[in-house]
């Protein structure tokens, strides 16, 4: 995958700037973690190449993979971050 952009989406949609930033991320690889689980049903994520859900946060919230759109996978934060190439661009959306 060339020119991959990585987005760590930890903030809920209500976080300042979160919606504006996520709208730029068609084609990105995204990890939903922490409050970012609130984005799981957001249709904008369908334009992304890869969406992962932090398994630890999902378990803590009672969220299940069956509730996710097709193609969403589990990951741990450490596993997902290990796949990141900073030179490709790591963008974070924090609360």
């Amino acid at each position, binding site marked *: 995958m060339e020119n991959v952009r990585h987005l760590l989406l930890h903030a809920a949609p209500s976080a*300042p700037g*979160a919606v504006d930033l996520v709208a730029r991320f068609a084609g990105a690889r995204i990890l939903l973690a*922490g409050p970012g689980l609130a984005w799981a049903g957001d249709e904008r994520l369908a334009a992304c190449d890869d969406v992962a859900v932090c398994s630890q946060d999902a378990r803590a919230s009672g969220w299940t993979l069956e509730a996710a759109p097709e193609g969403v996978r589990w990951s741990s934060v*450490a596993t997902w971050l290990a796949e990141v190439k*900073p*030179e490709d661009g*790591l*963008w*974070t959306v924090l609360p």
Partner: protein
Amino acid sequence: MDGPAVILVVVTTPAPPPDALRLVTGLVAGGHAVRLVEAGPGRGALSAADDLPEETEDYLRAIADFDVKPEPIDDPALREALLASSSLMRIGDPARAGEPAVLAVSDALIRESAGEELIQLITDPGQVIRA
């Protein structure tokens, strides 16, 4: 930016949440070059605090094994750190102004901003990204 890819983590809140440090720890453990700095309202939030949550202490110990430690820095050092970074993670104050909603921090913008202006540049926005 020339040279190796460096992820700059800037703490701009006096109370960074443990969750944010978990993310930093994941990056460090993944083998990335990470620099953790404290600027403006975040100066001393990790490096000089004596009542951090136990979870935060655990993460700081973990990244210290990789020689990553929080550094309080001033404006000139922040400028150099930003210019040397390829990615930017700002751990901000939840009560920040949130204006602008998103700020793309380019080399030109960093060079054009002086003194306290540079701190405000990355403290106030809803989100900041390295451009």
